[in-house]
């Protein structure tokens, strides 16, 4: 029983982790960002906001560890016209709600607003985000992140950074 209490993740701890992740993405410190993940973790940006069988649907992104590594390598390569330079971003994550937790994991829902700027143009992307965090020794890891954009099933634009 003591072990359960020790491994539980508080909302406060989760929020600090999520804010740190947000800063890593805005500063494009992708090496540190990759290190936040569990090896089995999935980073998903669906098109269908209501579905749950993501593997059998077309998504904007459906990344396992290999695809995350390939994606961040591409974004930082200097050879991708859309990300060299990429838009600058500032994001806010808030409206945190605990969804489900057990010994060593916690799922949190949140709201995210990303403002991007590039070449005289400023644009806004709103999203509902779900995070599943797991305890790994003395740190937390990101095991699942799903970003449901408000306009995911409408026209977007070339996005040269991570949400």
């Amino acid at each position, binding site marked *: 029983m003591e072990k359960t209490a020790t491994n539980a993740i508080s909302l406060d701890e989760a929020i600090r982790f999520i804010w740190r992740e947000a800063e890593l993405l805005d500063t494009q410190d992708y090496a540190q960002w990759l290190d936040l993940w569990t090896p089995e973790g999935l980073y998903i*940006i669906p*098109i*269908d906001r209501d579905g749950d069988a993501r*593997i*059998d*649907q*077309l*998504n*904007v*992104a*459906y990344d396992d560890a290999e*695809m995350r590594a*390939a*994606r961040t*390598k*591409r974004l930082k*390569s200097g*050879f*991708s*016209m*859309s*990300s060299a330079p990429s838009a600058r971003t500032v994001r806010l994550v808030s409206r945190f709600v605990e969804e489900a937790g057990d010994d060593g994991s916690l799922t949190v829902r949140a709201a995210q607003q990303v403002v991007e700027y590039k*070449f005289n143009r400023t644009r806004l992307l709103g999203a509902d985000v779900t995070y599943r965090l797991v305890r790994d020794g003395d740190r937390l890891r990101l095991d699942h992140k799903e970003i449901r954009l408000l306009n995911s*099933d*409408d*026209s*977007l*634009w*070339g*996005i*040269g950074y991570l*949400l």
Partner: protein
Amino acid sequence: MNDQQAEAIDFGELVQSDRVHTSLYRDPAIFDEEMERIFKNTWVWVGHTSEIPIKNSFVKSWVGDKPVIVTRDKEMKVHVLLNRCRHRAASICEQKSGKTSVFVCPYHGWSYALDGKLRAVPHSKVYGEDFDKEEFPLISLRTEIYNGMIFATFRDDIEPLDDFLGPAKKWIDLFMKQGAGYPVKVLGEHQFTFDGNWKIQLENTTDAYHFPIVHKTFLDSLDSETTNIFDVLGQGGWLEDLGNGHSVMVMIPDLVDLDENLDAPIPERFEALAQELREEGHDEDKVRRMVRAVGGGGFNLNLFPNVACSMAFFRVLRPVKVDQTEIRHIAIGMDGGPDAANRVRLRLHEHFQGPMGFGSPDDAEGWERVQRGSAAGDDLWILVNRGEQPLEGHAAGEHVTDVSAETGMRAAYDMWKKVMTA
């Protein structure tokens, strides 16, 4: 634009055999005329039959800048209807796709069947006894289908779709072989807009020249065997003008006919899929057929003015404004085929296509750079003179040009000129 302004533009002068004028990207008056002279005068792709699989199903689409609804009525007949109530012009459908037996205008409640017929008008007595519902159906466009691809036109007197497509039909048939024995089915779509003229996208689908430059980071993300497959300029491919503005660009000759070479070794990246399909009980012949088809065909078929069968997906453009275009990348798979194979198709599509793919954002950035750059020098020309000479002794025939030639663009602009000066 009024007729006087339109007459002041000499469209024939703006397209030469080896160049087109910058104003084709920038002049709003030309754009307005294109919507009339091109998109209301030719066959325009509106959807795939799998998007309306059952009776009373519908999907929204566009013919140029005109919103339409593609429907399948209770007799399974396909219609393309203007999305506009005959009463006071309100749009009658704002749902992307779905199933219904009736469209009810939200403004005054006029209701229409899926064949467009006006069914009921609330409080119709006030119109008087001579009001005849048969006079006010939704406007229905002439609609024809080739191998699952639905096209519509405002014109009742132009050639049948079969004649318009001509030699392109053979390539559509080859493209559909990626169903690997199953019907081809739409699995989903990516949509994005870019701030640039629609013809920049029309050109791009027939532009192999940019591929190794713009898509270097996509190529870098592949294993070495697959990188070689995507060496699109180095495999003896070709470009062919198919008439009526259509063209085909063959980048991977080995993948033109997906029913051939089934004995070839299975690529390493699809070995896991092949094994999964074998374990599901599919015989070796079928496994090889599905695996060979799973990455799509080796060519882009560009159909004037708005759709391409692009290797493994449909690429559809919609002109929004002179300097804004919406793109749809429609993923396709095997209707009733194994989930494992369709999942691979979905993941491959996500890898390159869409707003965060490893390819599309760089394409979109390139197209926006064309629009931005074209602001510098309204009196200058866009060059489309690459690879004018046919290849000598090429197996595909006497008239084909290098895979990186701008032959497909010249074909499209020839058609543009023909239609705009008709």
